[in-house]
Every structure is written in structure tokens, then in C-alpha cells.
């Protein structure tokens, strides 16, 4: 990593948006020794200049919910291919979910992810560890050792912790390490074998539905557990919330000042259950696509500042796995490559959020949840930067994805907003011209 030592880079004339430092103006960014040196009018002559005229210059984006499938399902994605997709999408940090095969459930597993990521040398790759051994929801996994190895939180993602006593134990124990417990809220008894939202479309398509209540019941339960603990450093994060009911539960919890955060995905902001009407398995995702009403509630929550992070839940799957009956195909949408344009479409274009509002949810807010010193262009911090052309229009083409998998329902969508350059630790790791 020393080859950049002393190397200076100047990003000139861009519009800098750094919500953490309340910067939202046209200025320059000077980077040296992999770190931010100055954000402002830089007079200094530097050999390495990036002209960012007409572009947005923002802290490197963070996606705290991705699946890179390694170890176990390398045919779908690897840490290397996922990392390449991440920087192409403008993400300088990602958090892998531990539901690999085998799961990330001890310190060696955490180190394995880090080693693979260093080798890929694209984006910063963090990982969460499993809450319970084997993600079985019974016995706690070694959170302490995993935290020491660098795990940035714990979740049994893909699966909610069903047993409330186990969940209570996890929330209490995690306080020792000041780490977040992230929950995939899904009560399996209520969810049953549901493969899409329980509603009008599941009824006419003859598919088992998964009621939003499955998410809400567990979310509500978890918040009671958090409330019960009261003291200490307990932190709870609800992953990919998808219903109007969940928004109300979060709203009430935040009103009480509970240490609760949550995230939303692009697909839950852009797509509804109606998309499943032709049995296209690219729309099969968990939590399932809901209704316009739920989208409305999520957008309102975003406008009100109730949602703390935007995440892709990038879930790559092979075409052959998705070319199955809707009932049999796996859940998941691959979306790292095109995520930013989707956030713009869902939130900037209809005026739900302004640019600083959007960037905040993709930088400093998720950084805080996972407890990493990132997401801001503060002097002395590692220089992760994303340069965006907000006006570039293009068509999403899954065949150009860096991700190994193309299970993405946005293929062919006309979108606006393109990542021009992704700089990680002062080094250009992605350039749109490449």
C-alpha cells in the first residue's frame, strides 16, 4: 500500500457534498498519502489532477448489506467479483452478510473474508458475523473473537433469530463489544412458505404469500427486547424493512429514544408485488416486493429521517437457478453495479431527498451503525471518494455488470446518474472510461 506514499491527487472544480462536515459547495479536494488533506479552494500545483467540473464529489459510498457468496457459492459471486461490482457502483466500503456456506461464524472466517478482499484490492470489505452458530438460532456464536478479528456487527441474515430468549441474550452479550445486532425480521411461523407478498397478486397467481406481519411481528418483538435491556450500549438494526407497518414500529421506537436503526433497499422503493405477475423470478426477493402503499410509507420515512441507511442487499444468483418455477427459485436481486442510479430515480427525482440527504444515508450514517471511521472527507481520514456525473443518462445493461450474476430486474431501465470514478485510499480503483 506504500506505493502511493507522498503521491498527491487533486480533484478540481467538483461540487463537493460531505454531509458529515456540512459541506455542499463547489470546491477542490486534495489527497496525499492516501488521506484527505484539504477540502476547499486548493491553490497548490499538483501533477495528478482530476477535473471534476460538473460532477459531484462525495465521500466514498458505503453499502452495509451485500452478499458476496464466498465461501461456498463462488459460481454466483466471489469477494473479487463482488468488489469489482462495488467500485463500479461507487461503493468504497461494503459489508458482507455471513450467510455463506459455511457461514461466517468464527474469527478465522472473518479473517478469510478480509484476506480475500485484500487480494481483490478493489473496495474495503467488512463482514458481519453470525449471531448464532450455524445461523440456527440456538447457541450464540463467538461474537467476541469475531469482533476482535474485525466483524462490524452480527446477524443471521437470510433468517431471523426466531427464539426471543436467544435474541435477548444476543442483544445483551453484544454490548460487551459495542457492536450492532442486525436482524432479518421474519417470523417463520407467520411467513410460512411464502414466496411473494401475501395479497391480491399471490391470490391470483396461486403462490403462497408471505404477509408483512411476519416482518412486523419480529420487529415489534425485538424492540420490546431492546426496551427491556434499557441500559448499556445495546444497538439494534432492522435490515431491509419493507412495509408501512414496520415504518410505524420504527417511528414509535425512535420517538421513545431507543437505540434502533433501520435500512431500506432500492427494490422496496421502486418495485411492487405486481412485478411478479408474469412469474419472473428476478422479482423474487426476501422480504418480498410489497405494495404502492408500502413504498409510500418508506419514502415518507426517508423524508422524515427515520431510515438510517440505504443498502442494496446485493444477492447474486446464477441464471440457471433463477430459470426455475417461481416457487423453487432462490430469493435475491443483484444490484451493486446500478444502485446509485436507482436511489436517484427513487428519491432524488421525485424530490423525496436532496443530494446531501441521499449521500448521508450512503456514507456517514451507515458508517456510524457499523462503527467504522468512514463516510466523511475529514482531514486525516483515509481518502475514499466517489465522483458522480448526476446528469449522465444511460440504459442499465446487466451484461456490463462486474458482478458474476445478472439476476437484476432493472435491465433496460433508462436511468440518470453515473459513477465516474471511485477512489479507495487515495487510489483510483474504478474509472468509467475503462
Amino acid at each position: 500500500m506504500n506505493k502511493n506514499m507522498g503521491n498527491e491527487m487533486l480533484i478540481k472544480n467538483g461540487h463537493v457534498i460531505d454531509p458529515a462536515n456540512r459541506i455542499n459547495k463547489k470546491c477542490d479536494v486534495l489527497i496525499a498519502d492516501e488521506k484527505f488533506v484539504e477540502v476547499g479552494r486548493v491553490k497548490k500545483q499538483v501533477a495528478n489532477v482530476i477535473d471534476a467540473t460538473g460532477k459531484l464529489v462525495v465521500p466514498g459510498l458505503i453499502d452495509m448489506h451485500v452478499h458476496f457468496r464466498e465461501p461456498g457459492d463462488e459460481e454466483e459471486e466471489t469477494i473479487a467479483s463482488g468488489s469489482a461490482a462495488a467500485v463500479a457502483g461507487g461503493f468504497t466500503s461494503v459489508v458482507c452478510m455471513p450467510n455463506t456456506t459455511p457461514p461466517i461464524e468464527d474469527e478465522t472466517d472473518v479473517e478469510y473474508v478480509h484476506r480475500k478482499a485484500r487480494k481483490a484490492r478493489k473496495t474495503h470489505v467488512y463482514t458481519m458475523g453470525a449471531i448464532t452458530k450455524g445461523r440456527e438460532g440456538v447457541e450464540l456464536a463467538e461474537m467476541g473473537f469475531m469482533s476482535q478479528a474485525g466483524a462490524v456487527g452480527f446477524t443471521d441474515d437470510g433468517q431471523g433469530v426466531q427464539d426471543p430468549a436467544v435474541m435477548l441474550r444476543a442483544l445483551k452479550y453484544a454490548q460487551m463489544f459495542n457492536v450492532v445486532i442486525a436482524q432479518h425480521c421474519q417470523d417463520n411461523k407467520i411467513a410460512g412458505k411464502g414466496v411473494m407478498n401475501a395479497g391480491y397478486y399471490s391470490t391470483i397467481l396461486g403462490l403462497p404469500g408471505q404477509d408483512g406481519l411476519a416482518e412486523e411481528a419480529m420487529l415489534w418483538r425485538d424492540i420490546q427486547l431492546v426496551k427491556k435491556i434499557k441500559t448499556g450500549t445495546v444497538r439494534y438494526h432492522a435490515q431491509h424493512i419493507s412495509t408501512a407497518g414496520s415504518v410505524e414500529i420504527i417511528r414509535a421506537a425512535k420517538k421513545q429514544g431507543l437505540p434502533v436503526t433501520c435500512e431500506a433497499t432500492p427494490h422496496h422503493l421502486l418495485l411492487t408485488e405486481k412485478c411478479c405477475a408474469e412469474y419472473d423470478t428476478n422479482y423474487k426477493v426476501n422480504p418480498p416486493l410489497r405494495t404502492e402503499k408500502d413504498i409510500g410509507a418508506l419514502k415518507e420515512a426517508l423524508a422524515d429521517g427515520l431510515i438510517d441507511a440505504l443498502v442494496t442487499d446485493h444477492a447474486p444468483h446464477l441464471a440457471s437457478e433463477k430459470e426455475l418455477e417461481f416457487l423453487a427459485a432462490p430469493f435475491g436481486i443483484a444490484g451493486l453495479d446500478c444502485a446509485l442510479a436507482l436511489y436517484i430515480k427513487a428519491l432524488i427525482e421525485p424530490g423525496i431527498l436532496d443530494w446531501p440527504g441521499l449521500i448521508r444515508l450512503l456514507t456517514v450514517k451507515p458508517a456510524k451503525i457499523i462503527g467504522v471511521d468512514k463516510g466523511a472527507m475529514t482531514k486525516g481520514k483515509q481518502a475514499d471518494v466517489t465522483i458522480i456525473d448526476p446528469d449522465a443518462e444511460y440504459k442499465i445493461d446487466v451484461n456490463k455488470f462486474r458482478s458474476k450474476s445478472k439476476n437484476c430486474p432493472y435491465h433496460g431501465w433508462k436511468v440518470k446518474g453515473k459513477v465516474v470514478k471511485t477512489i479507495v485510499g487515495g487510489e483510483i480503483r474504478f474509472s468509467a472510461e475503462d
Partner: protein
Amino acid sequence: MSSKQKIENDIGHPFIEWKRKHLLGLRELSAEEITYILDTAAGFEELSSRAVKKAPALRGKLVVNLFFEDSTRTRNSFALAASRLSADVVEFTKKDSSVSKGETLLDTARNLEAMGIDIVVIRHNAGGAPTLLSKYINACVVNAGDGYCEHPTQGLLDVYTIRKLRGSLKGLKIAIVGDITHSRVARSDLWAMTKLGAEVTFVGPPTLLPPKIEQLPVKISYSLDDVIEKVDVINMLRIQFERLGGNPFPSVREYSHYFGLTVERMKRAKPDILVMHPGPINRGLEIESEVADGKNSVILQQVTNGVAVRMAVLFLVNQAAAQHAGQTL
């Protein structure tokens, strides 16, 4: 006389070009299309009463019965329909679908297609499986029941039977009773019956009614007693124990008490009520034997009419495929 001329003679109007090379469900069909299938079936019904029960319409064509679920009635009915139209029929029964491990549905279908099939008749436990097939293979796809989505030929034979006995479905009140959630028959019936002008009521316990049912063009009742006097047709669904999850009603005894079509209940029904059942019957559970075999029962006529309806469907999809081929080759 060619079958085309024969149908023109029978239905008394010119032979229209049938455009759909697949029959996936009745939801997407118009009332005119459904009527056209029924009219075509009426022509074929006559054929079944002749000494030589065969027409040459599908001679040289290969029909595959691709059944991933148990079926006797529907599979035999399709086989009979195909052979009466002079097609060759291959039976392909595979109890484990790709939902469990093994060859995928598409691979199975592609293998069959490599053998030169013209029409796939598919029954599968996953809703939408026929739609999936229709997107990937060139052969015609006929849905013989997919999960609890649709069973279009059952819906067609049900309305065919009613139309034959009552002349029309317009204004008729029809009750469909039982496990609506897991019933593809209820859905196909609903689409066909309402499109042809009938008023349909689903009757069953709330635990066996699917989500957002109120958004469908149907009335809902939890009480067979409230409904029995008012309806012209009653279709008793089979309790599908293999699909029921958990314990949607406390006991068979209690279910029969509230939703069984008993001799006692029949006393309050209209005297000319048509009693239907898609079979196979659980005697004494959803319907008492005396009612199933009684004067109002048209259950066996449904079976008879099924063959004519399936002949019509096979004939029409094949016709559409020929048109498509003509256009694209």
C-alpha cells in the same frame, strides 16, 4: 368433411383464427374466447357419440402428458381427447418436480422437445410452471393444473356443463364451497363463470380464504346455510389434505357440519340446483353420498364433457401453432 368444415357446420358461424398457442389460464381469456372454446367443444361432443369416435385433426402430432402430480381423471381425459383427434400420446409422469432436487423443469421440457413434441399438457405443483415453460419452449403448452393457480380445462368443462344444462350462465348464482386458498379449480371457475355473466360466491372458513379475496369479483360467505337457498349451481371442492398447512379447521367432523353438502341441507336448496364436484370425491366429508349420486348431481356429466372440452383446447392451440409457424417460417 374436414374438421374445420364440421365445426363451422356445428357452431353455425365462421371458423375464427384462434391466436393462442398456449392455454395457461382463463384469467387472460375474454368472454368471447371462452365462448368460442365451448362452441368448438360442442362440435366435438357430437363426435363422441358416433360409432367411430375419431377425427383426423391432430394426425401425426405428438402430445405429451407431463404430470408432476398425481392425477387419473385429468390425465386420462387429456389422453382420450388427444387420441380421438388422432394424435400420438406420450405419458410422462414424474412425481418429484424440480422443487425437490433433480433435473429442472426446463431441462425436462427441452429434452422432450428434442424428441419432437407438438403439445405439452402439464400438471405441476408450482403456480406458474406452465407460464415458465411457454417462455422457453416452442411447443404448445396446455395447463392441466398448476399449484393453486389455475386448472383452465376444469373451469371450461364446468361452464360447459352449466351452459349445456341451463342454456347460459348469465344471471346465475353459483356457490363454490370449501378450501378456496388451495383450489385452482375455484380460481379458474371464478374467471370463467364471471366472464360469462354469473355471480359467484366463495363459501368456506376464513382460514381457507386467500389474502385480498375482496379485491376479486366474488362474494364471500362463511356460512353454507346462508347461501344454499339462493344458488342455482353449487360446486363442492375437495378438501385437499395434501395441501393444507397446519390445522385450518379443528376437525373433519366440524368442517362437515358447517360446509358439507348433506341431504338435510339439500332440502333447502332450489329443486333444480346443479350439484357439481371436480372430483375425486371425499364421500361423507364435503358431500354426502346420497347427494353426490342424487338427481341434482351432474358430477359424471362433468367428466364426460371434459373430454370434448379438452379436444377443443388441443385442437385450437394446435391451430394457433400452425398459424404462428406459417407466419414465422
